């Protein structure tokens, strides 16, 4: 189909004059430039600035680091400023086990949350994909609906639910299931609940889209060939939904690693996560260089899953052709 579309659009091109063709070539380049320019201005340049700060030394000044690069003292001055930059902050990060533990704990918490979100999201997405066609837009709407309320307010609401005298404990106590209030708030459990709740739509939507386009006759074919329903799910449905599983997991895992608000509000003071460490370094210690180094390492840490995500997306697109 794409071939046909290509040849159709190419045909009038071949017949048009040279200046028109040249103009079109420029125009098509311009279209590509827009996203690249966006990434350059809002991603690459800020990253270079952060990276530069991570190589600087902290100072009691405005801005709170040195050297501040500039051409005030000519090219030679700029060169000597550059020489002051060092990887000392990165070495400092390896010295103090705090940072290593924070990274590890972030990855661990994000990993567990992702698995939980998958376990909760998959049945929901599956149910939605098998629901009557007329009902699906409504179900999709319901999944997206929480986004209409502020994220922060929804996380605060969880404090009200989870705290010792909160709604959940009152309910469980009044029904007699428990006799002592459960301690959930300010534990990892609360963080898991918060992350799973907040990021669930990001898990459900890609799962739903991959399950929804699956041909149900494949399941019937598997059953026809002697495969009971449960086994057909693991042999056919699940492998075919893998692109959705990978996309959903990455969409939850990547932001969850750097999550700050949820561990801060629900996890209590003893929770060590890299988002909080970064916030502390930046605002409490005013150590911009070290917090920049923390941010750069975090980014490098996340590049691996992002690349897995991208190659999975590319493969999924290749398959759907």
């Amino acid at each position, binding site marked *: 189909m794409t071939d046909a579309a290509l040849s159709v659009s190419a045909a009038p091109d071949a017949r048009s004059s040279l200046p028109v063709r040249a103009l079109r070539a420029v125009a098509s380049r311009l279209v590509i430039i827009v996203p690249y320019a966006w990434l350059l201005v809002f991603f690459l340049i800020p990253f270079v600035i952060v990276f530069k700060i991570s190589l600087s030394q902290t100072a009691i000044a405005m801005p709170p680091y040195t050297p501040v690069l500039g051409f005030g003292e000519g090219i030679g001055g700029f060169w000597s400023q550059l020489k002051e930059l060092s990887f000392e902050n990165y070495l400092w990060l390896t010295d103090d086990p705090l940072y290593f533990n924070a990274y590890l704990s972030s990855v661990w918490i994000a990993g567990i949350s992702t698995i939980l979100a998958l376990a909760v999201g998959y049945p929901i997405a599956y149910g939605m994909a098998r629901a009557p066609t007329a009902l699906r837009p409504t179900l999709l709407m319901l999944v997206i609906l929480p986004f209409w309320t502020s994220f922060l307010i929804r996380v605060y609401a969880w404090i009200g639910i989870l705290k010792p005298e909160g709604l959940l404990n009152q309910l469980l106590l009044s029904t007699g299931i428990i006799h002592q209030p459960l301690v959930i708030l300010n534990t990892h459990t609360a963080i898991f609940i918060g992350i799973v709740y907040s990021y669930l739509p990001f898990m459900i939507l890609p799962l739903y889209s991959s399950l929804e386009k699956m*041909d149900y*006759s*494949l399941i*019937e*074919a*598997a*059953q*026809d*060939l*002697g*495969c*009971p329903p449960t*086994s057909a799910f693991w042999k*056919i449905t699940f*492998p*075919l939904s893998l692109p959705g599983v990978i996309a959903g997991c990455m969409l939850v895992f990547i932001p969850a690693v750097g999550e700050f608000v949820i561990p801060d509000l629900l996890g209590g003071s003893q929770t060590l996560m890299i988002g909080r460490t970064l916030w502390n370094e930046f605002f409490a210690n005013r150590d911009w260089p070290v917090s920049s180094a923390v941010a750069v390492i975090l980014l490098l840490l996340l590049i691996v899953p992002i690349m897995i995500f991208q190659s999975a997306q590319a493969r999924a697109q290749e*398959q759907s*052709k």
Partner: protein
Amino acid sequence: MKSLGSIRRSFAPWNDPSAKPYISFENVTKVFGDFTAVDNLSLAIYEKEFFALLGGSGSGKSTLLRMLAGFDNPTSGRIMLDGQDLRGIPPYRRPLNMMFQSYALFPHMTVEANVGFGLKQEGMPKADIDARVAEMLKLVKLEQFAKRKPHQLSGGQRQRVALARSVAKRPKVLLLDEPLGALDKKLREETQFELMDLQQSLGLTFVVVTHDQEEAMTMADRIAILDKGQLMQVATPAEIYEAPASRFVANFVGNVNMFEGTVASRDAGIARVTGASGAEIVVDNAGDAAAGNAIAFAVRPEKIKVSSKRPEGAVNAMEGEVYDLAYLGDMTVYRVRLADGQVIQASALNSSRASDDPLTWHDRAWISFQPDAGIVLTR
């Protein structure tokens, strides 16, 4: 080839009162919401038969197949396979396999894995699976495509993978849902004969669902014509074509001219029928049509002769005007409009290179047919 033909001719268990049906639908009804897909239908299919379910969309033919496969259950009535009631037996325990209209090949598995899927479910040893898969791929001439994924194959190749997969388990019955529907005309014709050979060589019972009457006529031993969930007729292709049971069947299979009228008189098998316009025709084999009955005399186009003059001694002849004409090479199709406005279709085989009685548009022409050229239909 000759011996094959003779086997086919002598194969007619439905005429043998002592033969036991292999598959039987007994008063089966299937209701979806307020839609009755299959309406109190009974049908017997015999072992090693090539049976076609033919009907338009919504005729219930696919529902019958799905009930046989176990994907739907009858609302009432029962389906028997080899003396066993199939009720409550899930699809994965039924000794029959289905070839899906969409082929339903598993996109994440190679051709090999697709064909071997059912065998693996059975717990067959790997060496045996490999041998059987190789045998199946050889049967459908796809040996060199074993490692490909379905999306790397052409439509015709996919169809053959689906076929190989559905016969790999050596089912007793193979169900085929529009098996040739997605193929182009030439490939479809070739594949029809391949399917017939396969059915003969494996000795399987085939139940095929199709909306294509030509396909059904070519391949099937017997055809069931369905309409609105009811059985219209079950018979061999020749019987369906030459002796349709009703106007619906006559119209559904092939082209037909209907001479509607009332039986004016009856003398043994011969009846005189008066049409609405007053024209009279004489028909043979009037069956149980009595004087005063409204009947239709159905005559196939190739049994009607077209000539520029009234043929001498013709019993049934009517004059009209050549309204349309199509030269198809091997034959010419005439559409002749009679005085009462009815358009009659007649086809003449071009057995010699030049016609001795050339007719063209707007010529006056006579159509004629023998009293036994058609069949009297009361329904």
